[in-house]
């Protein structure tokens, strides 16, 4: 393209790359059974948790990290990582927002996530996780009125051990994969949600994850249980400081939907992606899975993935209950030297189960973007239906898009549909917009947003706008 001037536009730097100077209480780097004991003690967890963590750790020692993804990265030294880091507090833990360190409140304010309850996101309850621990949860009282439990997982382990023991690891067992095993051994916090029978959660729930300390891995774990006939919409956001070395993030998210329950889970992932030469950035190895255990239950994943140096993530749904529904809507953008290998698994077990997969991959610069999907129809899945659409948009001559769909239908009445497309951003489209007076950047942004529209419309209103803006920032100077 002749528009070389665009290449000269310096990319807007990652706006969340600052570090908060706060004293932290951290373990020494390295991972042994003692590390796990130490975490368990710090979290004051019941006995069953120690046994489970140690089982996971011992299993992890027998595993090797997966090699099948279309990503390249240097071997990770697991003994150089700090597995627990918490901002040092004077007391046991913040009882209310007044007890939270003002520096932390300031950090979240800078990130645009005000933790005071009349903030910009009023109407959204926020749990803020800073490095290894949750530092504040808002709107607790209002949620309690509805019977909704929304608290740090470390708190739920003590206040609702029966729920945790029943459901933790029930969707993603520690044996599931290398990173899930590691997470099970060392996770320190995350969010816990329980929506009682018949309750429609009165507000959006949101967790905001922030990595601050250097050399620290973040291993959060989220567990959401929607009891019969309930509904919840949950959103997570994430950022991290700019650092030259890579940092590991290995989270696990488990969702359980019982009869007629619905869970809508949205992610806006904006971990530090590394610089334009591919230095630094977060390694994001995440296991997310939902189980539609009940009849007519529904789990819907929506993800906007713009950050991280490496994204390895396949939010999936096990469609066990008859007539249950699974959905996966994804926009993954890779710019500079980012690599994303992402997609979903839909496992159809029950009768008349339905799933929809809409994946939009955008590659710019030297970015590599892979869709990897698996749709399995078991012999029991009579009349099951799947529709898959994966589209890729290329913004440069040096980027790449790859699609690895896997389909297996073992029931003759099951029906699977797959559509895929790859296109280079149209010169004709760009010229058309510019002839009507739009600048090149506005034209790119408009075309890309149009490309992603099917996914954006699935996001809660407040976040759809954020996602569009995020895409604009991430794409600056990407066409040239």
């Amino acid at each position, binding site marked *: 393209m002749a528009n070389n001037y665009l290449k000269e536009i310096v990319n807007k730097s990652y706006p969340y790359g600052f570090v908060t100077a706060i004293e932290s209480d951290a373990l020494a780097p390295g991972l042994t059974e003692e590390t796990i004991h130490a975490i368990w003690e710090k979290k004051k967890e019941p006995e069953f948790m120690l046994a489970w963590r140690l089982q996971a750790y011992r299993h992890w020692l027998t595993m090797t990290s997966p090699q099948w993804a279309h990503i390249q990265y240097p071997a990770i030294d697991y003994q150089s990582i700090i597995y627990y880091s918490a901002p040092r507090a004077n007391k046991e833990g913040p009882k209310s927002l007044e007890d939270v360190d003002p520096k932390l409140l300031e950090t979240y304010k800078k990130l645009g996530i005000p933790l005071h309850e009349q903030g910009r996101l009023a109407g959204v309850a926020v749990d803020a996780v800073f490095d290894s621990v949750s530092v504040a949860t808002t709107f607790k009282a209002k949620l309690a009125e509805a019977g909704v439990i929304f608290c740090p997982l470390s708190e739920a382990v003590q206040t609702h051990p029966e729920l945790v023991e029943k459901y933790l690891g029930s969707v993603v067992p520690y044996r599931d994969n290398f990173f899930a095993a590691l997470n099970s051994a060392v996770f320190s916090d995350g969010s816990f949600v329980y929506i009682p029978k018949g309750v429609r959660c009165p507000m959006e729930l949101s967790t905001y994850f922030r990595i601050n300390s250097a050399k620290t891995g973040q291993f959060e774990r989220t567990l959401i249980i929607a009891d019969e006939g309930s509904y919840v919409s949950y959103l997570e956001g994430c950022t991290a400081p700019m650092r030259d070395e890579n940092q590991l993030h290995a989270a696990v998210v488990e969702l359980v939907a019982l009869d007629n329950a619905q869970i809508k889970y949205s992610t806006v992932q904006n971990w530090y992606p590394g610089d334009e030469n591919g230095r630094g950035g977060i390694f994001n190895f995440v296991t997310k899975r939902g189980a539609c255990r009940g009849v007519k239950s529904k789990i819907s994943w929506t993800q906007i993935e713009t950050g991280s140096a490496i994204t390895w993530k396949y939010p999936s749904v096990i469609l066990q209950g008859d007539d249950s529904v699974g959905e996966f809507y994804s926009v993954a953008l890779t710019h500079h030297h980012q690599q994303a290998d992402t997609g979903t698994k839909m496992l159809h077990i029950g009768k008349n189960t339905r799933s929809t997969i809409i994946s939009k991959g955008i590659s710019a610069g030297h970015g590599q973007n892979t869709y990897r999907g698996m749709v399995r129809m078991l012999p029991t899945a009579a009349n099951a239906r799947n529709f898959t659409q994966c589209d890729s948009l290329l913004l440069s001559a040096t980027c790449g898009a790859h699609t690895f769909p896997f389909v297996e239908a073992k029931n003759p009445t099951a029906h699977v549909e797959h559509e895929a497309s790859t296109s280079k951003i149209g010169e004709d489209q760009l010229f058309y917009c*510019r002839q*009507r007076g739009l600048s090149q950047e506005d034209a790119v942004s408009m075309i890309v947003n149009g490309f992603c529209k099917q996914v954006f419309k699935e996001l809660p209103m407040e976040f759809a706008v954020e996602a569009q803006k995020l895409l604009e920032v991430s794409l600056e100077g990407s066409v040239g």
Partner: protein
Amino acid sequence: MLSINGLHVSIQDEKQQAKTILRGLSLHIKPGEVHTIMGPNGSGKSTLANVLAGRTEYQVHGGHVEFNGEDLLALTPEERAARGLFLAFQYPVEIPGVNNMYFLRTALNGVRKQRGLSPLDAADFLTLVKAKAQEVGLNEAFLQRAVNEGFSGGEKKRNEILQMLLLEPRFVILDETDSGLDIDALQMVAQCVNRHRNAQRSVLVVTHYQRLLDYIVPDVVHVMVNGRILKSGDKSLALELEAKGYGWLEAGEIR
């Protein structure tokens, strides 16, 4: 308004060979005039339209284009648009997922900003765009669809004319806007263009057929062959071409 002197243009073909299309073309259009360019396939008519609008894959080797006193070729496509140059495309592109109404409003408010006017709010714009859509005979439903997506050929052309009416350009290039239009649509498009005409606005009509000129009566007709204007005249030249074809002119051209 527009003054083209000795314009030479080439494009790289698939084999990376430079292919010359315009060979020393000159053309002068005054404010308020309507000019028509006719010519056989491959004579360079659409290339001229695209070069004037600023498509980047063409290489200009010589010549000069002045637009209201400015060097047109030094401007980006969006700068040309801001100065009132409008191209009604021969093949309008589809932009999936981008709402037509949103697109039109963004374009209009961009132009208004350039002209020092305040942007139209959603309600004012809606009133305006509905009236204009009716004028070009485009069903309102098309405003809520994605830009040109799934439009028929005729609907796409009407959508182009709708944009012309909204943006109120000073210089309009109609690139084979008549192709693919039935007679009713043709008349309606012509009426819109005629209403748009005034002493300050000029139009360049690129067409294969005399038919459109029954409705949009040109001041000057040019015949373009092999990248150059071979003959210019009044409307009677178009009728002569209709009767005799281009062969008699091409025969006189030294290749």
